[in-house]
Protein backbone atom coordinates (compact mmCIF):
# COMPACT_ATOMS: atom_id res chain seq x y z
CA UNK A 1 0.00 0.00 0.00
CA UNK A 2 1.17 3.52 -0.70
CA UNK A 3 -0.22 4.63 2.63
CA UNK A 4 3.19 5.64 3.87
CA UNK A 5 2.79 8.72 1.67
CA UNK A 6 2.29 11.84 3.77
CA UNK A 7 -0.96 13.51 2.72
CA UNK A 8 -1.62 17.23 3.06
CA UNK A 9 -5.00 16.53 4.62
CA UNK A 10 -6.78 13.48 5.99
CA UNK A 11 -10.52 13.56 6.39
CA UNK A 12 -12.02 11.28 9.00
CA UNK A 13 -15.57 10.36 8.03
CA UNK A 14 -16.83 9.93 4.46
CA UNK A 15 -20.30 11.42 4.84
CA UNK A 16 -21.54 14.31 2.69
CA UNK A 17 -19.42 16.88 4.54
CA UNK A 18 -16.28 14.74 4.32
CA UNK A 19 -16.86 14.16 0.60
CA UNK A 20 -17.34 17.86 -0.10
CA UNK A 21 -14.22 18.48 2.00
CA UNK A 22 -12.26 16.11 -0.25
CA UNK A 23 -13.49 18.02 -3.29
CA UNK A 24 -12.55 21.29 -1.66
CA UNK A 25 -9.09 19.99 -0.80
CA UNK A 26 -8.72 19.29 -4.54
CA UNK A 27 -9.79 22.86 -5.27
CA UNK A 28 -7.04 24.02 -2.94
CA UNK A 29 -4.52 21.77 -4.69
CA UNK A 30 -3.98 19.65 -1.59
CA UNK A 31 -3.54 15.88 -1.53
CA UNK A 32 -6.28 14.29 0.55
CA UNK A 33 -7.33 10.97 1.98
CA UNK A 34 -10.72 9.94 3.35
CA UNK A 35 -10.91 7.32 6.09
CA UNK A 36 -14.40 5.86 6.52
CA UNK A 37 -15.56 3.14 8.92
CA UNK A 38 -18.25 1.72 6.65
CA UNK A 39 -17.46 -0.13 3.42
CA UNK A 40 -19.13 2.68 1.44
CA UNK A 41 -19.18 6.47 1.32
CA UNK A 42 -22.18 8.63 2.21
CA UNK A 43 -22.42 8.26 5.99
CA UNK A 44 -25.93 8.48 7.45
CA UNK A 45 -27.40 9.31 4.06
CA UNK A 46 -26.35 5.97 2.59
CA UNK A 47 -26.59 3.87 5.75
CA UNK A 48 -29.86 5.14 7.19
CA UNK A 49 -32.06 6.89 4.66
CA UNK A 50 -30.87 6.60 1.03
CA UNK A 51 -34.39 6.89 -0.42
CA UNK A 52 -35.49 9.90 1.63
CA UNK A 53 -35.72 13.33 0.06
CA UNK A 54 -33.78 16.30 1.39
CA UNK A 55 -35.19 19.77 0.77
CA UNK A 56 -32.63 22.10 2.33
CA UNK A 57 -29.55 21.75 0.16
CA UNK A 58 -28.81 25.08 -1.52
CA UNK A 59 -29.70 24.96 -5.20
CA UNK A 60 -31.65 21.70 -4.97
CA UNK A 61 -35.41 22.11 -4.46
CA UNK A 62 -35.53 18.38 -3.71
CA UNK A 63 -32.88 15.69 -3.85
CA UNK A 64 -32.80 12.09 -2.63
CA UNK A 65 -30.07 11.26 -0.13
CA UNK A 66 -28.69 8.68 -2.54
CA UNK A 67 -28.42 11.04 -5.50
CA UNK A 68 -26.87 13.77 -3.37
CA UNK A 69 -24.12 11.29 -2.48
CA UNK A 70 -23.75 10.23 -6.13
CA UNK A 71 -23.34 13.87 -7.11
CA UNK A 72 -20.82 14.52 -4.35
CA UNK A 73 -18.88 11.47 -5.52
CA UNK A 74 -18.79 12.84 -9.04
CA UNK A 75 -17.76 16.27 -7.82
CA UNK A 76 -15.02 14.85 -5.59
CA UNK A 77 -13.64 12.72 -8.42
CA UNK A 78 -12.81 15.83 -10.44
CA UNK A 79 -9.61 15.68 -8.39
CA UNK A 80 -9.21 11.91 -8.17
CA UNK A 81 -5.49 12.09 -8.95
CA UNK A 82 -4.98 13.72 -5.55
CA UNK A 83 -7.52 11.66 -3.68
CA UNK A 84 -7.22 8.39 -1.79
CA UNK A 85 -10.20 6.64 -0.20
CA UNK A 86 -9.79 4.09 2.60
CA UNK A 87 -13.05 2.31 3.41
CA UNK A 88 -13.90 -0.10 6.19
CA UNK A 89 -11.33 1.28 8.62
CA UNK A 90 -12.03 3.01 11.88
CA UNK A 91 -9.54 5.37 13.44
CA UNK A 92 -8.07 4.44 16.80
CA UNK A 93 -5.13 6.61 17.79
CA UNK A 94 -3.38 9.71 16.62
CA UNK A 95 0.01 11.12 17.55
CA UNK A 96 2.12 13.96 16.21
CA UNK A 97 5.80 13.47 15.46
CA UNK A 98 8.00 16.11 13.82
CA UNK A 99 4.93 17.98 12.59
CA UNK A 100 3.37 14.90 10.99
CA UNK A 101 0.25 13.23 12.36
CA UNK A 102 0.36 9.45 12.51
CA UNK A 103 -3.13 7.98 12.42
CA UNK A 104 -3.60 4.39 13.46
CA UNK A 105 -6.75 2.63 12.25
CA UNK A 106 -7.78 -0.93 13.06
CA UNK A 107 -5.93 -2.12 9.95
CA UNK A 108 -3.38 0.48 8.80
CA UNK A 109 -1.17 3.42 9.64
CA UNK A 110 -1.64 6.73 7.83
CA UNK A 111 0.54 9.85 7.69
CA UNK A 112 -0.77 13.36 7.23
CA UNK A 113 0.12 17.01 7.75
CA UNK A 114 -3.38 17.97 8.91
CA UNK A 115 -6.62 16.29 9.95
CA UNK A 116 -10.21 17.29 9.31
CA UNK A 117 -12.75 15.39 11.38
CA UNK A 118 -16.14 15.13 9.69
CA UNK A 119 -17.33 12.08 11.58
CA UNK A 120 -20.92 13.21 12.19
CA UNK A 121 -22.19 11.25 15.15
CA UNK A 122 -19.19 8.98 15.15
CA UNK A 123 -18.23 5.80 13.36
CA UNK A 124 -21.03 3.50 12.35
CA UNK A 125 -20.77 -0.09 13.43
CA UNK A 126 -23.22 -2.84 12.60
CA UNK A 127 -25.35 -4.02 15.51
CA UNK A 128 -24.29 -7.49 16.54
CA UNK A 129 -26.37 -10.59 17.17
CA UNK A 130 -27.48 -10.62 20.80
CA UNK A 131 -26.05 -14.12 21.27
CA UNK A 132 -22.47 -15.36 21.54
CA UNK A 133 -21.17 -16.08 18.05
CA UNK A 134 -17.51 -15.18 18.57
CA UNK A 135 -16.22 -18.59 17.48
CA UNK A 136 -18.05 -18.50 14.14
CA UNK A 137 -17.37 -14.81 13.62
CA UNK A 138 -13.65 -15.51 13.87
CA UNK A 139 -14.02 -18.38 11.42
CA UNK A 140 -15.71 -15.93 9.04
CA UNK A 141 -19.15 -17.54 9.03
CA UNK A 142 -20.97 -14.60 10.62
CA UNK A 143 -21.14 -11.57 8.35
CA UNK A 144 -22.35 -8.01 8.83
CA UNK A 145 -21.59 -6.81 5.30
CA UNK A 146 -21.37 -8.46 1.91
CA UNK A 147 -18.11 -7.45 0.31
CA UNK A 148 -17.83 -10.37 -2.06
CA UNK A 149 -21.00 -12.01 -3.33
CA UNK A 150 -19.08 -14.98 -4.74
CA UNK A 151 -18.16 -15.97 -1.22
CA UNK A 152 -21.76 -17.20 -0.81
CA UNK A 153 -22.02 -19.20 -4.00
CA UNK A 154 -23.63 -22.56 -3.38
CA UNK A 155 -23.85 -21.89 0.38
CA UNK A 156 -26.84 -22.16 2.69
CA UNK A 157 -27.21 -18.62 3.99
CA UNK A 158 -29.43 -17.48 6.87
CA UNK A 159 -30.15 -13.73 6.84
CA UNK A 160 -31.34 -12.01 10.05
CA UNK A 161 -33.30 -8.78 10.05
CA UNK A 162 -36.51 -7.16 8.86
CA UNK A 163 -35.46 -3.91 7.20
CA UNK A 164 -34.51 -2.92 3.68
CA UNK A 165 -30.96 -4.18 3.81
CA UNK A 166 -31.98 -7.64 5.11
CA UNK A 167 -34.57 -8.02 2.35
CA UNK A 168 -32.32 -6.59 -0.36
CA UNK A 169 -29.40 -8.84 0.54
CA UNK A 170 -31.63 -11.91 0.72
CA UNK A 171 -32.80 -11.11 -2.81
CA UNK A 172 -29.28 -10.42 -4.08
CA UNK A 173 -27.93 -13.67 -2.67
CA UNK A 174 -30.82 -15.86 -3.76
CA UNK A 175 -29.59 -16.57 -7.31
CA UNK A 176 -26.04 -17.26 -6.08
CA UNK A 177 -26.52 -19.19 -2.86
CA UNK A 178 -27.73 -22.77 -2.59
CA UNK A 179 -30.49 -21.59 -0.29
CA UNK A 180 -31.40 -18.31 1.41
CA UNK A 181 -33.55 -18.15 4.53
CA UNK A 182 -34.70 -14.84 5.96
CA UNK A 183 -35.43 -14.83 9.70
CA UNK A 184 -37.25 -11.96 11.41
CA UNK A 185 -38.76 -11.64 14.87
CA UNK A 186 -42.16 -10.49 13.55
CA UNK A 187 -44.28 -11.34 10.52
CA UNK A 188 -44.24 -7.80 9.17
CA UNK A 189 -41.13 -6.57 7.35
CA UNK A 190 -40.28 -2.89 7.26
CA UNK A 191 -38.81 -2.92 3.76
CA UNK A 192 -40.12 -1.20 0.63
CA UNK A 193 -43.29 -2.64 -0.88
CA UNK A 194 -41.52 -3.19 -4.15
CA UNK A 195 -38.83 -5.32 -2.46
CA UNK A 196 -41.47 -7.24 -0.52
CA UNK A 197 -43.29 -8.07 -3.77
CA UNK A 198 -40.04 -9.44 -5.21
CA UNK A 199 -39.45 -11.35 -1.99
CA UNK A 200 -42.82 -13.10 -2.29
CA UNK A 201 -42.01 -14.22 -5.83
CA UNK A 202 -38.48 -15.34 -4.96
CA UNK A 203 -37.22 -18.65 -3.60
CA UNK A 204 -36.12 -17.03 -0.34
CA UNK A 205 -37.60 -19.00 2.54
CA UNK A 206 -39.20 -16.80 5.21
CA UNK A 207 -39.12 -17.86 8.85
CA UNK A 208 -41.13 -15.60 11.19
CA UNK A 209 -41.65 -14.79 14.03
CA UNK A 210 -38.39 -16.33 15.20
CA UNK A 211 -35.17 -15.19 16.85
CA UNK A 212 -31.79 -16.93 16.96
CA UNK A 213 -30.90 -18.80 20.14
CA UNK A 214 -27.59 -20.43 19.29
CA UNK A 215 -25.32 -21.28 16.37
CA UNK A 216 -23.94 -24.81 16.27
CA UNK A 217 -21.35 -26.84 14.41
CA UNK A 218 -18.27 -28.93 15.14
CA UNK A 219 -15.53 -27.58 12.91
CA UNK A 220 -17.53 -25.13 10.90
CA UNK A 221 -20.99 -23.60 11.18
CA UNK A 222 -23.60 -26.28 10.56
CA UNK A 223 -26.89 -25.05 11.91
CA UNK A 224 -28.79 -22.17 13.42
CA UNK A 225 -31.24 -22.82 16.25
CA UNK A 226 -34.26 -20.52 16.36
CA UNK A 227 -36.96 -19.94 18.92
CA UNK A 228 -40.50 -18.77 18.23
CA UNK A 229 -41.34 -15.31 19.60
CA UNK A 230 -44.21 -15.48 22.13
CA UNK A 231 -44.33 -19.23 21.51
CA UNK A 232 -42.63 -22.43 22.47
CA UNK A 233 -41.48 -23.90 19.14
CA UNK A 234 -37.77 -24.38 18.47
CA UNK A 235 -36.52 -25.09 14.97
CA UNK A 236 -33.14 -25.78 13.42
CA UNK A 237 -31.92 -24.55 10.06
CA UNK A 238 -28.93 -25.98 8.26
CA UNK A 239 -26.54 -23.15 7.50
CA UNK A 240 -23.02 -22.50 6.20
CA UNK A 241 -23.09 -18.75 6.75
CA UNK A 242 -25.22 -16.17 8.50
CA UNK A 243 -25.65 -12.54 7.50
CA UNK A 244 -26.80 -10.11 10.20
CA UNK A 245 -28.69 -6.95 9.20
CA UNK A 246 -29.75 -5.40 12.48
CA UNK A 247 -28.89 -1.83 11.50
CA UNK A 248 -26.11 0.41 12.74
CA UNK A 249 -25.07 2.16 15.86
CA UNK A 250 -22.78 5.18 15.88
CA UNK A 251 -20.24 6.03 18.53
CA UNK A 252 -17.57 8.69 18.84
CA UNK A 253 -15.37 5.94 20.27
CA UNK A 254 -11.60 6.42 20.37
CA UNK A 255 -11.75 10.05 19.13
CA UNK A 256 -12.89 10.95 22.65
CA UNK A 257 -9.45 10.01 23.93
CA UNK A 258 -7.50 12.28 21.60
CA UNK A 259 -7.30 15.17 24.10
CA UNK A 260 -9.67 17.21 21.95
CA UNK A 261 -11.95 19.62 23.77
CA UNK A 262 -15.33 17.89 23.77
CA UNK A 263 -18.67 19.38 24.75
CA UNK A 264 -21.68 17.02 24.85
CA UNK A 265 -20.20 14.57 22.34
CA UNK A 266 -19.19 17.37 19.93
CA UNK A 267 -15.72 18.76 19.23
CA UNK A 268 -15.26 22.42 20.13
CA UNK A 269 -13.83 24.55 17.28
CA UNK A 270 -13.00 28.23 16.74
CA UNK A 271 -14.03 30.39 13.77
CA UNK A 272 -11.31 28.72 11.66
CA UNK A 273 -12.97 25.38 12.47
CA UNK A 274 -9.75 24.51 14.26
CA UNK A 275 -9.84 22.37 17.40
CA UNK A 276 -7.70 22.87 20.50
CA UNK A 277 -4.99 20.77 18.79
CA UNK A 278 -3.12 22.74 16.13
CA UNK A 279 -3.54 21.10 12.72
CA UNK A 280 -6.72 19.23 13.62
CA UNK A 281 -9.96 20.73 12.32
CA UNK A 282 -13.57 19.58 12.61
CA UNK A 283 -16.65 20.33 10.50
CA UNK A 284 -20.27 19.23 10.19
CA UNK A 285 -22.39 17.64 12.89
CA UNK A 286 -19.40 16.60 14.98
CA UNK A 287 -18.20 20.17 15.66
CA UNK A 288 -19.71 22.78 17.91
CA UNK A 289 -19.32 26.52 18.51
CA UNK A 290 -21.54 29.33 19.72
CA UNK A 291 -24.57 29.46 17.43
CA UNK A 292 -23.86 26.10 15.77
CA UNK A 293 -26.67 24.36 13.92
CA UNK A 294 -26.55 20.83 12.53
CA UNK A 295 -27.43 20.84 8.85
CA UNK A 296 -25.77 19.35 5.78
CA UNK A 297 -25.93 22.85 4.26
CA UNK A 298 -23.92 24.42 7.10
CA UNK A 299 -21.53 21.44 7.15
CA UNK A 300 -20.62 22.12 3.51
CA UNK A 301 -19.70 25.70 4.35
CA UNK A 302 -17.79 24.70 7.47
CA UNK A 303 -15.67 22.15 5.67
CA UNK A 304 -14.68 24.65 2.95
CA UNK A 305 -13.52 26.96 5.75
CA UNK A 306 -11.73 24.12 7.54
CA UNK A 307 -9.95 22.99 4.36
CA UNK A 308 -8.87 26.54 3.46
CA UNK A 309 -7.46 27.13 6.93
CA UNK A 310 -5.78 23.70 6.93
CA UNK A 311 -4.22 24.67 3.60
CA UNK A 312 -2.58 27.70 5.22
CA UNK A 313 -1.48 25.56 8.16
CA UNK A 314 0.15 23.04 5.80
CA UNK A 315 1.53 25.69 3.46
CA UNK A 316 1.84 29.01 5.33
CA UNK A 317 2.51 31.03 2.15
CA UNK A 318 -0.89 30.19 0.66
CA UNK A 319 -3.97 32.36 1.10
CA UNK A 320 -6.98 31.49 3.20
CA UNK A 321 -9.39 32.94 0.65
CA UNK A 322 -9.73 30.53 -2.28
CA UNK A 323 -9.98 31.54 -5.93
CA UNK A 324 -13.41 31.52 -7.50
CA UNK A 325 -14.21 28.07 -8.88
CA UNK A 326 -15.21 29.59 -12.23
CA UNK A 327 -11.69 30.93 -12.82
CA UNK A 328 -9.97 27.91 -11.25
CA UNK A 329 -11.81 25.36 -13.39
CA UNK A 330 -11.18 27.26 -16.62
CA UNK A 331 -7.47 26.54 -16.13
CA UNK A 332 -7.97 22.84 -15.32
CA UNK A 333 -7.60 20.72 -18.44
Amino acid sequence: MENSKVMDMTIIGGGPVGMFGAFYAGMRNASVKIIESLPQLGGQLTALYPEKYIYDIAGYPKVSAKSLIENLDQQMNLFQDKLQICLGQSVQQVEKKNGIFIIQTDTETHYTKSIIITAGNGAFEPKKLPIDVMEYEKANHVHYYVNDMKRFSNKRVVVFGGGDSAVDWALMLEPIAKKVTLVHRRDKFRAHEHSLERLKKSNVELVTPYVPVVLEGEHSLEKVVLHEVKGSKTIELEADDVLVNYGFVSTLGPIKKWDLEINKNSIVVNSKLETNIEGIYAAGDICTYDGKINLIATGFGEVATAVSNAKVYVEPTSKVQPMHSTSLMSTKS
Partner: protein
Amino acid sequence: MTTKYTKVNQETCIACGACGDVAPEIYGFDEEGIAYVILDDNLGNSEIPEALWDDMEDAYEECPSESIKIANQPFRTENN
Protein backbone atom coordinates in the same frame (compact mmCIF):
# COMPACT_ATOMS: atom_id res chain seq x y z
CA MET B 1 -49.10 -8.94 33.23
CA THR B 2 -46.26 -7.27 31.40
CA THR B 3 -46.45 -3.57 30.78
CA LYS B 4 -44.17 -1.55 28.54
CA TYR B 5 -43.10 2.07 28.55
CA THR B 6 -40.79 3.98 26.25
CA LYS B 7 -38.83 7.20 26.24
CA VAL B 8 -36.35 8.91 23.92
CA ASN B 9 -33.03 10.12 25.28
CA GLN B 10 -33.10 13.52 23.60
CA GLU B 11 -29.48 14.24 24.57
CA THR B 12 -28.24 11.47 22.29
CA CYS B 13 -30.98 11.50 19.59
CA ILE B 14 -29.46 12.51 16.24
CA ALA B 15 -32.79 13.38 14.55
CA CYS B 16 -32.43 10.74 11.84
CA GLY B 17 -36.17 10.00 11.75
CA ALA B 18 -35.89 6.21 11.84
CA CYS B 19 -38.14 5.62 14.87
CA GLY B 20 -41.02 7.69 13.51
CA ASP B 21 -40.80 5.82 10.21
CA VAL B 22 -41.33 2.42 11.76
CA ALA B 23 -43.51 3.41 14.74
CA PRO B 24 -45.36 6.60 13.75
CA GLU B 25 -48.05 6.06 16.37
CA ILE B 26 -45.48 6.20 19.17
CA TYR B 27 -42.68 8.53 18.08
CA GLY B 28 -42.95 12.05 16.73
CA PHE B 29 -40.41 14.83 16.17
CA ASP B 30 -40.05 18.33 17.56
CA GLU B 31 -39.19 21.30 15.32
CA GLU B 32 -35.50 20.37 15.43
CA GLY B 33 -36.27 16.82 14.36
CA ILE B 34 -35.48 15.37 17.79
CA ALA B 35 -37.73 12.41 18.56
CA TYR B 36 -40.16 12.17 21.48
CA VAL B 37 -42.91 9.85 22.63
CA ILE B 38 -46.20 11.30 21.37
CA LEU B 39 -48.39 9.51 23.91
CA ASP B 40 -46.94 11.18 26.99
CA ASP B 41 -44.79 14.01 25.64
CA ASN B 42 -41.71 11.89 26.31
CA LEU B 43 -42.32 11.55 30.03
CA GLY B 44 -42.21 7.79 29.61
CA ASN B 45 -45.16 7.21 31.93
CA SER B 46 -47.87 6.10 29.46
CA GLU B 47 -48.36 2.39 29.05
CA ILE B 48 -47.76 1.43 25.41
CA PRO B 49 -50.65 -0.66 23.99
CA GLU B 50 -49.61 -4.22 23.23
CA ALA B 51 -50.63 -3.84 19.59
CA LEU B 52 -47.76 -1.36 19.19
CA TRP B 53 -45.04 -3.40 20.91
CA ASP B 54 -43.67 -4.85 17.68
CA ASP B 55 -43.41 -1.40 16.10
CA MET B 56 -41.72 -0.13 19.25
CA GLU B 57 -39.18 -2.98 19.08
CA ASP B 58 -38.54 -2.10 15.43
CA ALA B 59 -37.82 1.50 16.40
CA TYR B 60 -35.55 0.32 19.23
CA GLU B 61 -33.59 -1.80 16.74
CA GLU B 62 -33.41 0.87 14.03
CA CYS B 63 -32.24 3.70 16.27
CA PRO B 64 -28.58 4.32 15.35
CA SER B 65 -27.73 6.15 18.55
CA GLU B 66 -29.45 3.77 20.98
CA SER B 67 -31.60 6.64 22.19
CA ILE B 68 -34.85 4.67 22.38
CA LYS B 69 -35.38 3.28 25.83
CA ILE B 70 -37.92 0.61 26.71
CA ALA B 71 -38.83 -0.49 30.22
CA ASN B 72 -41.43 -2.56 32.03
CA GLN B 73 -42.20 0.24 34.47
CA PRO B 74 -42.78 3.97 34.00
CA PHE B 75 -39.67 6.11 33.63
CA ARG B 76 -38.93 8.55 36.39
CA THR B 77 -38.76 11.98 34.81
CA GLU B 78 -35.93 13.37 36.88
CA ASN B 79 -33.27 10.87 35.82
CA ASN B 80 -34.19 10.06 32.27
